[in-house]
């Protein structure tokens, strides 16, 4: 078709003015052998540069043939990399690019900078909210937490757990969402549900993480950093779907089928929760929702029992039974559910695990209701009606 016959509204390749630009100097063409050498050298050098990192990542991958094959390939590559000192050079370059080569395989936790509350500003006398305060420094009488740090702990100090403070625009509520990819979907929904002028929601979830593999990503250590740096008022937790694997501990590995796996997991969950609540932070632990794959139900229900028991043992924690919230009347999985107003909505994503934005909002509202009931979370913090 000639260019002049073409309608002007839509694109045309035939229009000489619009033809894709050809490189004026066509690059030198090579044979497959030469191209193969180029590609092989590129991939080999790249693999050697990343061999230590790749090997470490392979070690933290779930057990199986894929992991074994990866390790079988990477071990000799890592040895060659070591002999040729390519790995050392690469580590130096990685540091120069601002990347920690020895960081966790699951990536490093990046906590955004938060605005500090302006404590010098006089409180509004017309407001019923208390004057904005920063958290007091740890009392010298407070027992040191793990790692030798001291933290204020209302329970240890004998004070009853208080309600979540009423936020102000000068000192907004600090809400943190942690966990796996499900938590990364929940966080924006919570961001919508909290009033942004009174609450700041931080999404600090990491994909493919859980409590079983601290060698991949250590949530307990991450939570310690979060508590220290962010001092959250409330932490929402949603994880566990990646934990169907051996638990790695400092003493070794507890296999998934072992009788003491649940015991070890329970210990891990309790330690994780202690890390948050030891500084007085409230925790809303959202259980694993019902998923499409029935083969996973027994295991996930077992984990939910652990989370529910763990939360029940700590007055600063509340548990949300998202399984019941999202199952059908006959106890099954459904992608389409009615929201609080009775409107049918597509709540679940096509993978049978994750949620649609509407689904995350539905889950988020349930999680916030739990915080309101357990910790008298002030309605002023919220954009929506309970």
């Amino acid at each position, binding site marked *: 078709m000639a260019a002049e016959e073409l*309608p*002007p*509204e*839509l*694109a*045309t390749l035939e229009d000489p003015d*619009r033809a*894709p*630009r050809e*490189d*004026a100097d*066509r*690059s*030198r*063409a*090579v*044979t*497959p052998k*030469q*191209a*193969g*050498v*180029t*590609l*092989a*050298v*590129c*991939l*080999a*050098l*790249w693999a050697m*540069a*990343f061999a230590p990192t*790749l090997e470490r990542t392979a070690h933290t991958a779930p057990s199986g043939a894929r992991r074994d094959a990866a390790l079988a390939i990477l071990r000799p590559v890592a040895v060659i990399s070591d002999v040729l000192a390519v790995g050392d050079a*690469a580590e130096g*370059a990685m540091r120069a690019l601002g*990347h920690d080569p020895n960081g966790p*395989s699951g*990536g490093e936790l990046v906590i*955004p*900078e*938060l*605005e500090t509350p302006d404590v010098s500003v006089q409180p509004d006398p017309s407001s019923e909210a208390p004057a904005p305060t920063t958290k007091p420094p740890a009392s010298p009488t407070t027992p040191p937490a793990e790692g030798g740090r001291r933290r204020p702990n209302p329970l240890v100090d004998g004070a009853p757990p208080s309600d979540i403070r009423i936020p102000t625009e000068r000192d907004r509520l600090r809400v943190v969402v942690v966990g796996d990819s499900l938590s990364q979907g929940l966080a*924006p*929904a919570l*961001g*919508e549900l*909290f009033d*942004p002028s009174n609450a*700041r929601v931080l*999404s600090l979830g990491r*994909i*493919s993480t859980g409590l079983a593999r601290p060698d991949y990503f250590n949530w307990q250590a991450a939570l310690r950093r979060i508590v220290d740096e962010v001092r959250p008022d409330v932490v929402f937790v949603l994880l566990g779907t990646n934990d169907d694997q051996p638990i790695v501990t400092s003493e070794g590995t507890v296999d998934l089928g072992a009788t003491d796996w649940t015991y070890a997991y329970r210990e891990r969950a309790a330690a994780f929760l202690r890390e948050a609540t030891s500084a007085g932070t409230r925790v809303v632990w959202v259980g694993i929702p019902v998923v499409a794959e029935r083969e996973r139900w027994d295991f996930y229900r077992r984990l939910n029992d652990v989370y529910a028991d763990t939360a029940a043992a700590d007055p600063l924690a509340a548990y949300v039974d998202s399984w019941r919230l999202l199952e059908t009347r006959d106890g099954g999985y459904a992608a*389409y559910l009615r929201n609080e107003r009775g409107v*049918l*909505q*597509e709540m*679940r994503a*096509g993978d049978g695990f994750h949620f649609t*934005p509407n689904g995350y909002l539905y889950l988020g509202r349930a999680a916030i209701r739990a915080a309101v009931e357990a910790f008298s979370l002030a309605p002023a913090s919220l954009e929506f009606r309970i």
Partner: protein
Amino acid sequence: MLFPTTDFAIFFAIVFAMHWVLNPHPRARKWLLLVSSYVFYAWWDWRLVWLLVTVSAIAQLGALWVERQDEQAARSRRAIVASLALLLPLVWFKYYGFFALSLANAFEGIGLSPPLPLLQVVLPVGISFYTFMAISYVVDVSRLEITPASWLDTFVYLAFFPHLVAGPIVRGEELLPQIRRRRDPERIDVSRAAFLILGGLFKKVVVSSFLAAQIVDPVFGAPGAHSALETLVAIYGYAIVIYTDFSGYTDIAIGVALLLGFEFPVNFDRPYAAVSLRDFWHRWHITLSRWLRDYLYIPLGGGKRGEVRTAINVMITMLLGGLWHGAGWTFVAWGGLHGIGQVVGRWRRCSRERRGLPLEPASAAAVLRARVVTFHLICLGWVFFRAGSIGRAFDVLDRLVTGWAEPSTLVTPLVVAAIAGMLLLQNVPGTPGPVVQRTFSRLAPVMQGAALAVVLFAITTLGPNGVAPFIYFRF
């Protein structure tokens, strides 16, 4: 299988070696391409392969059925029937859930039970792309532009892994001859391929991932929680994210095909240097744009039936083009905005033509002004494209008006630099790319490999842990 993964690197290394070994044996080479393409597709879900086989079979049967008819009108009718058959799987997978849910809520509103079962149909990766290619194949046969290929060639044409999941939408006349003939073993343009692949990786792994994580996803996820400045920068950021994500994928696809000796059409040409929405569609997703022109706009009558009919045809084309991206009112709004913009632009051009005024911006200042206005119109469309719902889109736009008193912690110098840098690259002529590419091409293969390894190392280090799927996979 995603391009920026070690899985793909290993897969491609094997396919590359085997392809060139089998190059002198056309039939074996085609079977290799077919099997490797199905493996590539099955990496997501092996059950999806049957769908690809079915669509390929319908396309081939349709083409043979169309060819048997000598009369042009009858050929066209048969092509329409075959195209509708090809559209059925796309409609089912892409639109059934949306349709059934909308009906259910409408019926419940008047006290009736839902007329259709609510099934969640998972959208197979790439179905929109290979369905469009299949339709173009059948229609081109009906128009006598090509003759039906062999069964094996047709199956390879539709399944060829570099274009399979997100284009470019390659036409039969472009790819089928390349599949038929053995590839020239003396002409692998490795320099251009390497620049396309690494450039695409940089755009996707570094730029797109960075901007998406730093500002776009947080702001579009919770617009009410962010300031006006953050919202504005997030909108600009999304314009860069979707460009770097999609053009990055296409660049890698074209580069990978080049290494196997295949030439794909260009899909992007500095879209944010456009001086009008019409110009934008000459530069953005060019292969979809020409598909819509050749298989929808022109069959509707194109621009030959008067101003009003032309405007209607443009609107229908752009609205359906929007719906091609997904079942949602946001995509209709996006397509509608572009349609209205093009209709208004066309009337303006006609008006200027009648008054004897230049149709294109004449001065540098006028070009700059036109680019800025066009870019902001495109960004307005992207708000609807990204928002997820019409309400959310208006929430985002509302923040541009109401949120100026709040702090903007997400607007960091690096975010601004990334957006400005990518926009500058599109608007400033004379980038050093060709010179660097020419210099690179003069290096020995070992040195080329070492240089590429350094760039690949930097991209991998600067990128995040794990790479999100490409945006256009879901379309």
